[in-house]
């Protein structure tokens, strides 16, 4: 793991500055990001060092997460359908605890995208060609510093600028700090009660009167 105490996202997120890792391959599933044996835990603390454990063992030191030049990276650049498979939040937790604060890819699996958002990790997308360009540029200029700007949706290096895409709702939540949704959800308490009262199954389809004593 690069940082002994990784930088966890907090509050409004406007930019991420750092070096990037290029990780190639489509359909990289969450079982690969964090193999199931590491899910045997009651907290997420140890996951950072276990990220991609099987893939890393297989590549014997040559996996992008093991390369020396990548050890301080905070931006991950991937290909298509990244994070598919199991819904385990352990996957983005492991990436975050390793030091990743943002992911850029051609596309993301939905649950993975949502899990990242809930942790304050933006997932940006762009075309296949642009991803190829970004990955090449990272691979051939080891250690180049990049600047990811959330508001402008841009990734900048000294030489180039790439325009990225992100779901507007997700962007709004990240840049305003509302990605940490619990407080927001709880604040609508009255509306929650009202909806619950209107759903007949909540009270076993009993008569309307008794529905009023709900919650």
């Amino acid at each position: 793991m690069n940082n002994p105490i990784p930088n966890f996202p907090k509050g409004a997120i406007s930019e991420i500055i750092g070096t990037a890792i290029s990780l190639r391959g489509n359909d990289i599933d969450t079982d690969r990001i964090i193999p199931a044996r590491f899910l045997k835990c009651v907290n997420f603390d140890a996951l950072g060092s276990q990220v991609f454990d099987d893939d890393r063992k297989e590549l014997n030191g040559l996996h992008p997460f093991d390369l020396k030049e990548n050890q301080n990276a905070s931006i991950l650049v991937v290909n298509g359908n990244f994070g598919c498979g199991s819904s385990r939040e352990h996957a983005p937790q492991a990436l975050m605890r390793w030091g990743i604060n943002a992911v850029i890819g051609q596309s993301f699996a939905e649950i993975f995208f949502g899990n990242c958002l809930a942790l304050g990790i933006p997932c940006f997308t762009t075309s296949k060609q642009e991803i190829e360009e970004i990955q090449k540029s990272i691979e051939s200029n080891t250690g180049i510093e990049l600047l990811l700007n959330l508001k402008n949706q841009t990734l900048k290096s000294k030489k180039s600028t790439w325009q990225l895409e992100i779901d507007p709702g997700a962007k709004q939540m990240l840049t305003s700090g509302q990605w940490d949704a619990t407080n927001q959800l709880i604040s609508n308490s009255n509306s929650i009660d009202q909806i619950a009262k209107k759903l007949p199954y909540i009270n076993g389809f009993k008569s309307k009167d008794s529905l009023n004593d709900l919650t």
Partner: protein
Amino acid sequence: MSSGTLFDKVWELHKVAKLPGGSTQLFVGLHLIHEVTSPQAFAALEEKSFPVRCPDQTIATVDHIVPTTNQERPFEDPLAEEMLSTLERNCKKHGIKLHGIGSGSQGIVHVIAPELGLTQPGMTVACGDSHTSTHGAFGAIAFGIGTSQVRDVLASQTLAMNKLKVRQIWIDGELNEGVYSKDLILHVIRELGVKGGVGYAYEFAGPAIEKLSMEERMTICNMAIEGGARCGYINPDQTTFEYLKGKAKAPSEESWQQALNWWKGLVSSPDSIFDDVVKFDASKIPPTVTWGITPGQGIGINESLPIPESLEPSERQIAEEAYRYMGLKPGSGIEGVSVDVCFIGSCTNGRLSDLHAAAKIAQGRKVAQGVKAFVVPGSEQVAREAEQEGLDKVFRGAGFEWREPGCSMCLAMNPDRLEGRQISASSSNRNFKGRQGSSSGRTLLMSPAMVAAAAITGQVTDVRSLIKQEKESTEKLKNE
């Protein structure tokens, strides 16, 4: 944009508010929790001193980490023991019903909620587990969520979600003998791809779907997520209502009519608009087996493995990777590939009817030498019913092991796992690299009957040939 579908109706009924980010705050009618994705959520809740808002709408079980041989406490594995005792503590503290080991109702979360009658049409169901899509078989809108969202549901009984598009998957015809709902869904995923469903809810409909039992429907919806769809569902009908009637948590006799009226009103209207419609013919679907490392890499039992060069460029890379990992040869057949381990179980195919189908093949035959074959019922209730019918004896007699309920070798969180490069025939839902516990272990997904056939012959086998054999010998007996 879709309109008039069951998905649209259920979504509208559960909408609490529009959130500043543009997503919808959705009420969750049934929240299922288990030992793997809940501990961190409870910890986060306590950190913020929030109570569990609706403990009565929250149901817990333990499934992933339980051993299937010796379930005595404390578990041999201290980590597994810690996970279960954490769940027990959290449930007790927050007044949540836990269906624990030995309660008679413990089992895989997606098996027990339906069999208890907890899952009902028109509900929203959430669980920190991607195969929550299973519950859509009842006409519920059910999706898997991450741990932060488990925390949100515990705290508020709601979720922030973006509305999905709706694709209708219309299936004409009828499945042939020896072809099961597992083959149907493997075929659909093969055709539409593992990313095909991203952004969609899948509505499975048409004559072939209507003919399926509830358990077969659950197998289909279970794997909607493997096709990329966050949820899959089937409109409730007479089959659904008959299944639910009399179940422990289903509406009582007195309220049954009211429930029925409400459920029937939620069915997709005849003039529904879908974002997309795709059609298949069930009678053309063969027994299907995966050969690669994604559930979309499936082929018919009599087909030969694809040549990477002949695939779409986007499929080529993952196909090449799959060949490297699986050690199979492009152009060769899948039939006849030797297997080491045969696993019947999981939330996809660990229900009573799955065990029936497999037992029919195992009956009077013997597991091939050198093959380890085992059957893991999806729940204590499935185990009980199977034992009452003597299925355990059929399996044991044929050389299968008969285990205690749990997720078992579907994933590597309990003692059941592949070793080294072992290759398994598996009735579960994922064939990802390392999924079954060995980082070089290999998985071939197929129906439970096909797994039983593989166990008997020691290799991937067209189950129809065994069915035919059986028919011929009964004919012969009759004529003698």
